[in-house]
């Protein structure tokens, strides 16, 4: 994962109780409500990278995930001035219980940048806690500056037991190659569904599932990234795909010229394996001849038929079918 994206993904992972990494924020009651939330206050807009909401405690956490080492004082002051009602409205958050609402700000950054972020906060007069994220853990600095609930939840470092989840795997600032795999997978998906073509716009929204979080400019950059990746993919497989510019009648798109779905079933596997690089197929066992029949084995033959693998990899039938 690009180091830039580690802080935002770390915050998300700490708030998602998926059972792999520790999730102290989820354990304390916070859930991820929204991403890239624009909030307008006093005539100015500030964007919160992540908004967490703890419905039991009525606590909202506006998280600024710093990709670098610089803290912008003006942005910090705008974040600190946010009120719970602005965050609830801006984030479209549902408040299920009539509890008193309060909010706070949390900065998240790479551990190597934490000192500079803390220094920047001091110089700007911002009383905010900072979450320092390293490859091994996430630890809360300046806990006294945060809500006691937050300080308690992160009273000890959260040690990563697994790689940080990549909920936001790439963004508009990612290098070109970051788009290749998701775009290729979506083109294979189009092949499998026997779609004759897919527009670049649709391909972008499919390949970048978090597309809605971004503003117009960033979405435009994402679309260009997807377009470039799609062109590379098509150029690498000219017999299977063709990139087509927009015309008066059609949108810019990728046409699927040949899909393994049109092959005999036995050729499909090899057909897919051959796209963007061949893969050697190992020798596979043949199906065994079914045997006797009784109620228990009544479905053996049916199962062999229904689940047998392709011709070069026979099923594992045990020979007791009809």
């Amino acid at each position, binding site marked *: 994962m690009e180091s830039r994206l580690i802080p935002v993904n770390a915050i998300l992972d700490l708030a998602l*109780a998926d*059972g792999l990494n520790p999730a102290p924020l989820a354990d304390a009651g916070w859930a991820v409500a929204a*991403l890239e*939330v624009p909030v307008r206050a006093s005539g100015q807009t500030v964007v919160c990278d992540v908004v967490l909401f703890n419905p039991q405690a009525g606590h909202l956490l506006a998280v600024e995930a710093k990709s670098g080492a610089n803290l912008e004082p003006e942005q910090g002051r705008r974040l600190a001035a946010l009120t719970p009602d602005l965050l609830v409205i801006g984030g479209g958050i549902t408040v299920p219980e009539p509890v008193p609402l309060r909010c706070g700000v949390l900065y998240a950054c790479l551990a190597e940048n934490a000192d500079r972020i803390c220094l920047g906060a001091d110089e700007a007069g911002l009383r905010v806690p900072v979450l320092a994220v390293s490859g091994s853990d996430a630890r809360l600095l300046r806990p006294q500056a945060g809500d006691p609930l937050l300080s308690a939840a992160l009273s000890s470092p959260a040690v990563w037991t697994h790689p940080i*989840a*990549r909920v936001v795997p790439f963004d508009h600032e990612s290098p070109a190659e970051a788009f290749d795999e998701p775009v290729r997978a979506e083109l294979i998906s189009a092949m499998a569904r026997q779609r004759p073509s897919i527009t670049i716009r649709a391909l972008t929204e499919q390949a970048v599932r978090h597309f809605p979080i971004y503003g117009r400019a960033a979405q435009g950059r994402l679309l260009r990234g997807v377009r470039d990746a799609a062109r590379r993919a098509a150029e690498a497989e000219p017999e299977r795909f063709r990139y087509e510019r927009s015309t008066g009648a059609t949108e810019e798109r990728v046409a699927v010229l040949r899909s393994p779905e049109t092959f005999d079933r036995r050729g499909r596997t090899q057909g897919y394996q051959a796209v963007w690089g061949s893969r050697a197929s190992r020798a596979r066992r043949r199906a065994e001849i079914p045997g006797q029949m009784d109620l228990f084995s*009544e479905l053996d033959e*049916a199962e062999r038929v229904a689940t047998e693998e392709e011709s070069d990899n026979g099923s594992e039938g*045990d020979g007791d079918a009809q």
Partner: protein
Amino acid sequence: MTSRSDLSIKVPVDGSVPAKAFVLEVHADDPDAYLFEIAGRGNVRDTDDAFLSRVFAPSAAEFWVDRLQPRFWVFHTTGPSAPAAAWLKDRVESRRDTDWMWLPSAHLRYIAPDAQPRRVRTEFDGQRLVGSDDAARDLKVQLSGSHAERLLDRITDLPDYRSAVSFSNIEVDLNDPDLGSLRESVRRWGAFAAHGEQFTHHALFVQMVIGRYARLVESIEALSLRFDPLNEENAAALKDTDTGGASFAGMPIGIRFSRPVPDLPAFCEELFSSRAPFRLWGQPVITQDEALVEAVDLHVGQRIRIELGNDWMRVYLYAGSCGNTIARLISNLQTRFDGALALTHPDLQVAVSLKPDTAPAR
């Protein structure tokens, strides 16, 4: 015309051949049109029941198709099982909106609370994914007898072998004071063979198994990742700014293995080779101890993102995707790599294992 009550005559469970039922997971906006499409309009007959159709499948069998559960259709027949399954397989493999029902091992092990297991089979085949020096690379056990499942339970209790036990088939006796006795043989891909006293007993049993499986699939889908644009009012207020913003829901689905992946590149090569039974396409990016894969489930043609480590897997399912993808992955991993795998989300683990308090500690 035929009514639902006539099914007991059309598909007798007390005849000279077993009654069979095959369950397909179907995504159809227009069920009638879908049925015409897969069977041929001339081969479909209506009945008095809006959810029941009679289908003549050339070269296969006559099916009575029950669509009472809109997503899980039951194809009843007394015809020979092999051609019936072959006909259905053609439909499943030629479409991206149709799949089998992929029962996890525990859904067979605990098939019904009052069932008396009499035959069980495990067909664990780890030849392609389990290391050659592993204590249990391949395990095929079939046992007939009262409480036959206990043998597999005993094997499961042995640490070296538990990962190679996965229920593939089970046959049980059911006795109900009102519905009488029934013997059911069930396969993990959603096929049933029954012999007993009342068709209703069989049909209710099938629906019970489907209902439990449907809850698993729905639980999976409830965790799919969703990014929805923020509300229009907010957008209108910010029309002069270049901002986005989206609400967020869901989380990745974690799987913890009880045995280590022996060779990550080789494991990925097999898992994402597009081959059956997984039928996952992908070009893994492998680092020192982790593989990242933008995969495509070729059964349904949808993309899923997978991260894979030494003893864990993280799957990102996106909103609108079918939870059957994950259920199939679980069922196939159980029979090909680790019969003792666990879902890291507590609710999912309960839905898979059918036992509370089995979610692995974080």
